C-alpha cells in the first residue's frame, strides 16, 4: 500500500446515538463520503473525499452530523504551514497545477471592514426612509459633456444608451456551464423581478432565457463561446471580458465533464470537449484594438446598447481604466482579487491582482483627475459581501456593484471551493441532472429577490442616517467614510480620513 501523505482537512463527525441510518447523507453526497456498512449496520464515512459543503449536515433529519476541522497536526512551522506542505505532497505526486474555485480565502486585509460610515447628528437631520422618499435608482452609461439645444431652445435629450437600475446591485458574470441551468434561471428571473441585470458570463445564452433579455448583460470573452448576432441583440448591454479578478491574466477552463449537450449547444462547441478560452483576446493586443472591438459590437447592434469592459484589478488598473474610458466603452467594470470563480489555479487566485477597494479608489480618482469620470460608469465586483460593502463602494466612487459569490450563497452555496469538480451538491456549480434538480428555480429566484431587497432596505437606512436621500449624492462622497487600522499610504490611496479626524 502506498504512503498516504495527505490527511483530510475536515472530518465528518457522526453522533451514532442520533443517527437513524436513513442514508439521506449517502444519497446527498456526490463525493461519495458516506456509505452504509452492511455488516456493522451503521453509516460510515470517508472524510478524505469530504469538501465540507455542508449538504449532508443541512439535510440530516436528526442533526447527527457535523464537519470539524481536523486536529491532526503536522509539526508546527510558521513558514512551512501544514497547507503548504500538503500542497507540495500533492504536486510531487501529480506534477500538475493546483486547482481551486471561488474567491481568495487567505487572511489578507479586507479594506471594507476598515472603513466606517458616517451619520448625521444635530447640525443636519437624518432622514427616515420609512417616511420620506429614499432614492437608489441608478443609470449606467456615458453622460454628455455639453448641453445642446434645438432651434426652439429646448434641451436635446438624446444621449448614449443608458441602463436604468432600480437598485445599484447586479449579478455578475457566471456562465451557463460553470453554473447550472437552474442557477441561471434563478438569476435571470430575480434580475427581472428586481429591475436590475444579470450577466451571462462567457458561456452564451440558453434559448430558454432570451425572454429575460431586457435584464441580461451578454458577455463576449476571449473564447467567443456562444457569441452570434442574435445573442448580442438579445441582451440589454454587452460586456467584453478582458479579465477576471480571481485569475487575472489567464483565460477560463471549463472541463469537458461539464460540457453537456445543452451547454455544448449554447456555447456552440462539441459536447464533452474542454472549453478553454485563451488568456488574451487574440484580436486585442492593445488599447486601440479594444476600441475596435467596442465599436464593432456597437456597429453590430446599432449603437443601441451600452458596452461594458471588464478588467481585473491589477497594479496599473487606474491607467488601464483611463484608456478604456477613452475607448468608446460606456461602463468600466473592475473585478477585485477576492472575486469568485468556477475554477482557477490556486496560486493565481491567491497571489495575482489587488484588492478591489484600493483599485476602485484609485480608478475613480484617476478618472476625475483626468476630467473623464462622466465618460463612463464604474461598476465593481470582487467580493461585495453585504449592504455595508455596497454603501462603501458607492461612497468610494462606484456607480453600481456586481455580486456573484453573495448571490450563489443565497442559492445555498457554502463556499466549499470545489466548483471545478462539477459535483456541487447544492445544484449550483454542476451539470449533473440529479444534482441540478436540487436547486428549485422557484425557490432560488425568490431567495435572490429577498437578498437584494433586504440589502436595499439597509442601504436606504444607512443613506438616511447620513442625511442623504438619493444615491447620486453618496457616489464618490468619501467624506462619509473614515478609516480604522490603516496606514497613511492606505488612507491616501483610499482617499479617506482616519476615524476621529475632522471634516474634509
Amino acid at each position, binding site marked *: 500500500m502506498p504512503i498516504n501523505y495527505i490527511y483530510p482537512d475536515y472530518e465528518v463527525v457522526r453522533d451514532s446515538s442520533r443517527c437513524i441510518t436513513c442514508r439521506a447523507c449517502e444519497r446527498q453526497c456526490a463525493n461519495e463520503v458516506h456509505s452504509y456498512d452492511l455488516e456493522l449496520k451503521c453509516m460510515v464515512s470517508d472524510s478524505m473525499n469530504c469538501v465540507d459543503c455542508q449538504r449532508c449536515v443541512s439535510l440530516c433529519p436528526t442533526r447527527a452530523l457535523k464537519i470539524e476541522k481536523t486536529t491532526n497536526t503536522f509539526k508546527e512551522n510558521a513558514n512551512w504551514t501544514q497547507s503548504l506542505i500538503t500542497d507540495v505532497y500533492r504536486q510531487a505526486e501529480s506534477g500538475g497545477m493546483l486547482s481551486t474555485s471561488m474567491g481568495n480565502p487567505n487572511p489578507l486585509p479586507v479594506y471594507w471592514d476598515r472603513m466606517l460610515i458616517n451619520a448625521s447628528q444635530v447640525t443636519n437631520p437624518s432622514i427616515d426612509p420609512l417616511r420620506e422618499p429614499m432614492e437608489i435608482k441608478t443609470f449606467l452609461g456615458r453622460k454628455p459633456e455639453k*448641453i445642446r439645444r434645438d432651434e426652439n431652445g429646448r434641451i436635446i435629450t438624446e444621449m448614449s444608451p443608458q441602463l436604468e437600475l432600480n437598485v445599484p446591485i447586479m449579478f455578475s458574470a457566471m456562465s451557463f456551464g460553470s453554473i447550472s441551468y437552474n442557477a441561471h434561471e434563478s438569476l435571470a428571473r430575480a434580475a427581472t423581478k428586481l429591475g436590475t441585470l444579470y450577466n451571462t458570463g462567457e458561456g452564451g445564452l440558453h434559448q430558454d432565457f432570451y425572454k429575460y433579455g431586457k435584464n441580461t448583460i451578454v458577455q463576449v470573452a476571449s473564447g467567443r463561446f456562444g457569441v452570434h448576432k442574435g445573442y448580442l441583440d438579445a441582451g440589454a448591454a454587452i460586456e467584453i471580458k478582458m479579465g477576471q479578478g480571481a485569475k487575472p491574466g489567464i483565460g477560463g477552463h471549463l472541463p469537458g465533464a461539464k460540457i453537456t449537450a445543452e451547454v455544448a449547444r449554447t456555447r456552440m462547441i462539441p459536447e464533452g470537449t474542454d472549453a478553454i478560452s485563451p488568456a488574451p483576446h487574440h484580436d486585442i493586443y492593445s488599447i486601440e484594438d479594444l476600441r475596435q472591438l467596442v465599436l464593432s459590437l456597437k456597429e453590430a447592434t446599432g449603437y443601441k446598447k451600452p458596452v461594458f469592459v471588464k478588467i481585473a484589478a491589477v497594479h496599473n488598473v487606474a491607467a488601464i481604466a483611463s484608456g478604456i474610458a477613452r475607448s468608446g466603452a460606456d461602463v468600466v467594470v473592475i473585478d477585485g482579487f477576492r472575486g469568485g470563480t468556477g475554477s482557477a489555479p490556486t496560486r493565481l487566485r491567491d497571489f495575482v491582482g489587488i484588492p478591489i477597494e484600493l483599485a476602485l479608489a484609485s480608478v475613480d480618482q484617476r478618472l476625475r483627475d483626468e476630467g473623464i469620470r462622466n465618460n463612463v460608469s464604474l461598476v465593481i465586483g470582487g467580493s461585495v459581501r453585504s449592504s455595508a460593502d455596497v454603501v462603501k463602494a458607492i461612497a468610494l466612487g462606484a456607480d453600481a456593484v456586481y455580486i456573484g459569490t453573495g448571490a450563489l450563497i443565497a442559492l445555498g452555496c457554502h463556499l466549499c471551493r470545489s466548483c471545478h469538480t462539477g459535483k456541487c451538491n447544492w445544484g449550483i456549480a454542476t451539470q449533473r441532472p440529479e444534482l441540478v434538480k436540487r436547486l428549485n428555480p422557484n425557490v432560488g429566484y425568490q431567495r435572490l429577490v429577498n437578498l437584494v431587497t433586504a440589502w436595499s432596505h439597509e442601504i436606504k437606512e444607512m443613506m438616511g442616517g447620513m442625511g442623504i436621500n438619493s444615491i447620486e449624492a453618496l457616489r464618490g462622497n468619501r467624506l462619509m467614510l473614515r478609516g480604522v487600522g490603516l496606514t497613511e499610504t492606505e488612507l491616501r490611496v483610499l482617499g479617506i480620513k482616519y476615524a476621529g479626524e475632522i471634516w474634509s
Partner: protein
Amino acid sequence: MLKEGSNGFRNPSGCAISGIFSKSGRRIPGDKIIKSIRIMHERSNGLGGGFAAYGIYPEFKDQFAFHIFYDHVKAKEECEAYLRNNFLIAFQSEIPTRKHPNICEAPLIWRYFAQPIEARLIEREIDEREFVSRVVTHVNTYIAGAYIFSSGKDVGVFKAVGYPEDVGEFYRLEEYSGYSWTAHGRYPTNTPGWWGGAHPFALLDYTVVHNGEISSYDANRRFIEMFGYKCSLLTDTEVITYIIDYLVRRQGLTMEETASVIAAPFWSVIARKSEEERRQLTFLRNMFAGLLITGPFSIILGFSGGIMALNDRLKLRSMVAGEKGDMAYVASEESAIRIIEPDLDRVWAPSGGEPVIFTLNGGEHKCR
C-alpha cells in the same frame, strides 16, 4: 489666522439669510437689509456676517469690481502686480470702513475696478468672464495672504468676522444703494476667525448666501473639481457657487433648469410629469447626477438682474418669501421681512426644491 480649508479644516454651520429685491430696479440703501438681518441675531453667533449688493457701482458698471482681503502689504504688492499684468485698472481704493467696537483684526481691504487686457483674452481664446474666473482661482490658490472675495460687474460683497449688523455698520453700507441685496449671519460650529470664510461667497456676478449643511458635499466637490474649480475653503457655499457657475455660465442652463439639477424632483414626482418634461428632467438628473445637493439648505443666489431663492427638496431649512408692490423679499424667518415691510401683499413659504425667482421688470434673467 487659519484659512478655512487648510489642513482639511471644514467648517459646517447654521445661519440666517435675507434678501431684498426691487423688480423696478429702484435702488435701496443698505441700512434696510441691515435692519432685516439684525432681527435674526439669534441665528448667528458672531463668527461671520456679510452682504452682497447689486447696482451699487453705476459709475463703473462696465468694469469688474474686485474686492480683496490682504493679510499683509507683501500680498498686496504681489497681487497688484499680477492684476496689473492682466487688467487695465480704472480705479482702486481702500474700501471705506468705520471703526467698530465689535469688529477687530481687520485685514487690508481694497477694491479695484478693472477690465481685462484684450491681448490676454486673445492669447487664451476665452471670454472675459472665463478669464476673470481663472484669475480669481489663481489669486486665491497661489498668492498667499491675498483673497478675492468679490469679482462681478456692478456688484459688491462686504463681509467680516462678526455679527452681520455690525459688519454692515463697519462697511458703512448705508452709503450704498442697490436694486438687490442679500445678507448672511453665520453660526459656524467651530471657530473660523478668517474673514474670507464669511458669506456671501461670490464668483463673477454670482453671489450665494446659504443656510444649511449639505450631506452631498464631497460628491459635489469631487464632481465639480473635474471642471477646473478648486474647492479651497471646503464650505458648502463655495461648492454651491461653483456648481451654479458651471451650470448657468458654462452649460447655459436657465435658473429653473439649474434648480431642477441641484434640488432635483424625486423620481416619483418626475414620473407624474408630461412626457416632454419627464424626458428633460430625467436627462438633467442623469447628466448632472453628481451635482444633486442633499441635506438641508436654503440659499439665495444673487446674479445680475435677479435673485433666486431655493430650498433643498425636503425643505429641511426654513425660508419665507414675500412681495409688496415692486419689492420682493426672502428670508430665513418671516420676522426679517415684516420688520422692514409690515404690510405685505403676499407672503408664503416656498416648497422644497421649488425655485423662487425675481428678475428686473422686462429683463429676462440671463441664460448664460
